[in-house]
């Protein structure tokens, strides 16, 4: 079976470091026509402009061609075709499948049906490993290392899949965490168990300012409206954790602010011009990281 990337745990520490090196190489030389004879499918069962464009930019820069769909209304999926059949069919047409799905576990299942590698571009609230790898690449680029970094994560720690995958990845690098969230959105117990099992240092607080001066990375997340069944609860917490420029006084000089984007209002626009704001560069790093992932899985690098 071909190697897929469904969950961040599918990669060993060595493979993660290999992706970091490849991403740096692609950043230095972004146009390498390694995929001239390859066709890659981008199947977005759930819309996502940013992730899809980032993947498609990465494929195009590598000289590959893209087929796919960005919503399912004009496809056989809307006629009731099973995921299994869609994936089997697309396997026949392409050399790799990049997919996003609202069903959790869909990418793992697709990787078992497919005869080509599958890259998970997000499955519900479960995994989004290319985001995690680009987060790691951004940390490495700004801090010069991945080991012993103190990350302060703010916002939706309950549903935020990028947070969960980041915790799993940082277990390889002795990461230290401060979790800042309203009680309704605190980190699920299973991840606290994971942190303890891996002897990772972490603390939880509801106060954004408590440990901000001690952080190497502030990782902001959006409180997503679509994750709430109770809209009253959403209205109550949505404005609770907003990062403003004046809060950055006295923070470490090496500190950088990351955000998986899109942002709503959790980072005030006054922060954008601060040299510690890194989220737009982070998104740019995503293209190089995805070039690295694709070329590694296809064995051209």
């Amino acid at each position, binding site marked *: 079976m071909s190697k897929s990337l469904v969950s961040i745990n599918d990669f060993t520490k060595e493979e993660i470091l290999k992706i970091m090196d490849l991403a740096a190489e692609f950043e230095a030389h972004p146009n390498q026509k390694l995929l001239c004879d390859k066709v890659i499918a981008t199947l977005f069962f759930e819309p996502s402009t940013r992730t899809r464009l980032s993947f498609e930019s990465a494929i195009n820069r590598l000289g590959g061609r893209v087929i796919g769909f960005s919503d399912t209304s004009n496809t056989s999926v809307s006629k009731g075709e099973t995921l*299994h059949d869609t994936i089997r069919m697309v396997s026949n047409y392409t050399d790799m499948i990049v997919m996003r799905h609202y*069903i959790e576990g869909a990418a*793992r*299942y697709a990787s078992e049906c497919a005869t080509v590698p599958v890259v998970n571009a997000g499955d519900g609230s479960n995994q989004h490993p290319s985001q995690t790898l680009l987060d790691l690449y951004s940390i490495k680029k700004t801090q010069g290392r991945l080991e012993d970094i103190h990350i302060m994560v703010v916002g939706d720690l309950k549903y935020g899949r990028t947070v969960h995958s980041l915790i799993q990845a940082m277990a390889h690098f002795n990461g230290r965490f401060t979790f800042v969230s309203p009680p309704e959105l605190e980190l699920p117990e299973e991840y606290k168990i994971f942190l303890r099992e891996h002897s990772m240092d972490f603390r939880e607080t509801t106060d954004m300012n408590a440990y901000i001066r001690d952080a190497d990375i502030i990782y902001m997340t959006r409180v997503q409206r679509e994750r709430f069944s109770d809209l009253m609860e959403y209205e109550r917490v949505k404005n609770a954790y907003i990062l403003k420029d004046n809060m950055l006084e006295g923070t470490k000089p090496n500190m950088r602010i990351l955000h998986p984007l899109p942002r709503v209002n959790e980072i005030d626009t006054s922060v954008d011009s601060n040299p510690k704001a890194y989220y737009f560069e982070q998104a740019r790093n995503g293209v190089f990281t995805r070039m690295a992932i694709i070329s590694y899985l296809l064995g051209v690098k």
Partner: protein
Amino acid sequence: MKTVLEVSAIENGTVIDHIPSGSLFKILNILELENITNRITFGTNLESKRMGTKAIIKISDMEVPQEALNKIAIFAPMARVNYIKNFEVVKKLSVSVPDTLEGSIRCANPICVTNQERVLPKFEVVDKEKVTLRCHYCEKITTQEQFEIIK
């Protein structure tokens, strides 16, 4: 000394003992015993020195296959299985909670692919004492209290 058996002895077949009282009907269900014609006797809320109360199942003229023992283990990790011939125990087995589990239990996550498409649930057992499962597909946790049997 007590000489009366609370659940009468069988001549040939399988005895499953040391089942937690609350798990009796789940085990009858998961072993799909509803539709067989063999004689089945069972008792529950019986006295047990080890467990306080327990349940027991006796199935005549049938050897419960070894594969089924894993299914018993997820509801009754302490169960003992005795195979009987001519009223004598000819083989004793204890069950053990497996490392992985396929089928049998529904993933507790309603938007897991196993609940949305025709996909057989698969789990890794992450805690053998409490019998806690992690879904192979959606990676979410299903606890023993959430177990729902599927066939």
